[in-house]
């Protein structure tokens, strides 16, 4: 569905994407993961055929986005990061108007609008204006709008940023159904739980490059341990580096943070036992499963980018 080799995007002196290789198969849910400024959105804009690659090869649905942009866009559904619904149109009119951009007949536009409103659970709001809708409702409407042309690929740029937990879970559930129907999903996110929930496969981007690729599970196996022990010490804060030195050799890796020390170990309980054997007495001990977040922070570092 999507094929990129050595894809580069430059804006003047700034290189947003520095030569990435990506392949997305039909029916797959594929994620671009990375901190702000990693080049995810620039990549998405190239895939959605609104921004031409500076160099490298890019094929979408077997076509060239520069030459066949219009034909490709006819088969894509785009859910942008910033909502761009028409606030002075009704919920339903937002869909029927959009259907016309794809050349659909009025009757077909109305039929699909009603079907999609049902799908995103907005049928009761069909006649209301967009403005008073909640953030979650607007995002659902944007997703419904992205599906009006029955696209082969749906592109979602940070689909749940800024939504409350209930709204996020409802959205994930709808996206999961979409995936079950065989629609190819491509999304960007900086939420690890979102990537774990939705993606079959993902790439981690940092500084315009791909730093890791695989399924959420395989990335955890490769870049982290099965479990993580989080230790807090009563006089921690300034002394965590000292504690880390004392913990050296336990598990595979020790990572002192300002507020706690992380111990990466395949057997968390054994690691805790070893901590106690060394005479250390942390004020709190938490053994948890390793998550994509550990991989992400390990790969992209802990420095705040903006």
């Amino acid at each position, binding site marked *: 569905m999507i094929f990129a080799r050595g894809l580069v995007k430059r*804006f003047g002196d700034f290189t947003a994407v520095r030569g990435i290789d990506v392949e997305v198969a039909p029916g797959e849910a594929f994620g671009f993961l990375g901190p702000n400024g990693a080049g995810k959105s620039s990549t998405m*804009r190239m895939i*959605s055929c*609104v*921004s*031409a690659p500076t160099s490298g090869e890019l094929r979408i649905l077997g076509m060239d986005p520069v030459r066949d942009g*219009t*034909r490709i*866009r*006819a*088969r*894509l559904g*785009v859910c*942008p990061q*910033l*909502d*761009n*619904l*028409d*606030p*002075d*149109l009704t919920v339903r*009119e937002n869909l029927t*108007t*959009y259907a*016309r*951009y*794809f*050349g*659909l*007949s009025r009757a*077909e536009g109305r039929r699909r609008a009603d079907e999609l409103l049902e799908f995103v659970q907005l049928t009761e709001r069909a006649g209301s204006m967009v403005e008073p809708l909640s953030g979650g409702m607007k995002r659902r409407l944007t997703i419904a*709008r992205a599906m009006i*042309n*029955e696209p082969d690929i749906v592109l979602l740029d940070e689909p749940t940023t800024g939504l409350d937990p209930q709204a996020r879970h409802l959205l994930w559930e709808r996206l999961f159904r979409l995936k079950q129907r065989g629609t190819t999903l491509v999304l960007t996110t900086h939420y690890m739980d979102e990537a774990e929930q939705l993606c079959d496969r993902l790439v981690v981007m940092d500084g315009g490059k791909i730093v890791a690729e695989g399924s959420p599970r395989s990335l955890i196996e490769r870049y982290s341990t099965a479990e993580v022990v989080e230790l807090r010490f009563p006089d921690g804060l300034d002394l965590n580096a000292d504690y880390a030195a004392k913990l050296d050799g336990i598990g595979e890796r020790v990572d002192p943070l300002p507020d706690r020390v992380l111990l990466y170990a395949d057997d968390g309980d054994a690691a805790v036992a070893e901590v106690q054997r060394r005479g250390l007495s942390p004020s709190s001990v938490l053994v948890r499963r390793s998550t994509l977040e550990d991989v992400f922070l390990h790969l992209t570092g802990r420095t705040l980018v903006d």
Partner: protein
Amino acid sequence: MTAGTVHPSIAVLERHLTLYRRLWRASVFSSFVLPVLFVVSIGIGVGGYVGSVGGVDYLSWIVPGVVASTAFQMAVGESTYSVLGDFKWVRAYHAMRATPVRPDHIVTGHLLYLLFRVTTAVLVFLLVVLFFGALHSPWAVTVPLVCALLTVASAAPVTAFAASIESDSHFSLLFRFVMIPATLFSGVFFPIEQLPALVRPVAYASPLWHAVELCRAATLGAAPPWPVAAHVGCLLLWAVAGTLLAAHRFRRRLED
């Protein structure tokens, strides 16, 4: 994908009309009532003192000027905040850009919508002034065509301008230094022969002046100051150059 049952420009026009259906009541006063009040007060009130200009009564003389300047103001006014807003606040153009609709379709859809708005206003206005006996020639039926050409000639470059700026404060410059002078010095209220020779080229450059002279020639049944082809040519030049520039600006803003 069922393709091609509606042209993308028409789809864009439909979106504007759907929005207008909700807002048209607010525009009735400025589109239909205001120009008529204008003609009544200036034409009859001021005309009572002025008497006649170039051998016709003042009312008949300014009617074609007012109709053209109404078209001009509508075309310019509707191409400012609403265009910038669809880039910056509503981001409707970005939404369109994600579909098979191209930037040039967005521009033509916008211009088609303005043609609809201006033409309806011009027809209503002509109907009203017909009863004031201000139309002296059957050529008056060409006035809507001239106004349509004027609409594109003035809206297209302003649309290009609106697509090139980041802040709406630039519009006050446009209104102050372009729109008001154009309205005052384009032969709407007095013949441009009254202007100092130094200022007259400003009128020649203004699409409004050419449209005013063509409309006046049509309603009075007289020959315009320049050959018709020259006036039409100037308007066409503005229209074509403005449309191309607008499409270029839209492309640049929506890509990358």
